[in-house]
């Protein structure tokens, strides 16, 4: 089939489209911005709410640390909660910046990659949660003190200290395994999809598309 006839067929298509479509000049001149703005609002909700929540959490954790100055385990647990809250705030700010800087002027592959990466960035928040795991017992101390004004260490005995240590080691191992598993290439594992339930299909789609873009960019061989 000649190139020329494909172009002729394409021109037929163009004429048909022209015939069946009308460009609404009124629409153009009024430029309805509502639809575009509302689609952006939906995407912003998660990072904005995450940021707001963890700013409050970080502030309280710092106040908690100062208030319990002198009690080493409360100071440490407050500092841990404050540190990870700040990390989540920074992660949300990074996501927000990425979303707000989406620019449809960019070359197609670059922009579609950036949009896919925004969707996948929720995995980074899970990585932060994985780093937090080994500090689980201290987080428990923090919550009992913050919510019930109860110092769990008053109940401590030898068995509790051993359990504390064992739990910390187990959580440490789990954390390392999770961090290894939370590579984007591993994201199709069933248990990880379960973990990402709710955002899973979007992430899988985004990752699928990222892989497609990678393949698309790599194709540069000669035609056989």
């Amino acid at each position, binding site marked *: 089939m000649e190139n020329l006839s494909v172009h002729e067929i394409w021109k037929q*298509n163009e004429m048909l*489209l022209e015939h069946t479509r009308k460009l609404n000049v009124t*629409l153009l001149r009024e430029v309805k911005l509502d639809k575009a703005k509302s689609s952006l609002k939906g995407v912003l909700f998660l990072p904005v709410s995450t940021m707001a929540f963890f700013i409050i959490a970080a502030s309280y954790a710092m106040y908690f640390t100062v208030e319990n100055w002198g009690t080493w385990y409360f100071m440490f647990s407050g500092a841990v909660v404050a540190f990870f809250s700040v990390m989540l705030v920074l992660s949300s700010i990074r996501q927000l910046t990425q979303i707000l800087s989406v620019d449809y002027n960019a*070359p197609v*592959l670059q922009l579609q990659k950036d949009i896919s990466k925004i969707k996948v960035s929720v995995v980074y928040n899970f990585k932060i949660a994985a780093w937090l795991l080994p500090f689980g017992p201290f987080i428990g101390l923090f919550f009992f003190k913050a919510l019930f004004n109860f110092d769990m260490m008053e109940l401590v005995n030898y068995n509790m200290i051993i359990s504390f240590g064992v739990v910390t080691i187990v959580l440490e191992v789990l954390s390392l395994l999770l961090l290894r598993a939370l590579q984007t290439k591993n994201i199709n594992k069933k248990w990880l999809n379960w973990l990402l339930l709710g955002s899973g299909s979007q992430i899988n789609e985004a990752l699928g598309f990222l892989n497609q873009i990678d393949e698309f960019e790599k194709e540069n061989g000669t035609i056989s």
Partner: protein
Amino acid sequence: MKNRNTEIIDLIEEHRRLIYKVANSYCSDIHEQEDLIQEIIFQIIKGYEKFDHKVKVTTWMYKIAFNVSISHYRKTKIREKYMIPMPEKLVRIDDPEEDETDENLKRLRRFIEELDPLNKAILIMYLDGNSHLEISAAMGISLSNVSTKINRIKQQLKKKFKQ
């Protein structure tokens, strides 16, 4: 001297076929096409302030149209997983013009429909007579990659038309 708003509106009117073609290639539902075209126009108007004229205005418009359309296409693909589509026979009003459409045109449209979103973009720009350089600038891939893909698509197209 024309103001910038009038300038961009005139440009959009002049190149409206480009917008229709891209929207039509990524979205078959007529109501969604209206939304998609509106979104493309919005992004073109919004982006015109930053347009530096380093590429042709049509190349720039293709970039935006493809970016919006591919993003839209990906969103609707996810939505379709959870929606039960209306049976076509209940809602479709037969367009008499469709019966008269050339068989080759139908085949070409089907072929374009079956392509993945990125190769679709390349084919549309190629069929519109854009140079490999312009396609490379719009897509953000190398010139040699563009040539490779176009040749591959042409071979697939030849096979399709021989069937």
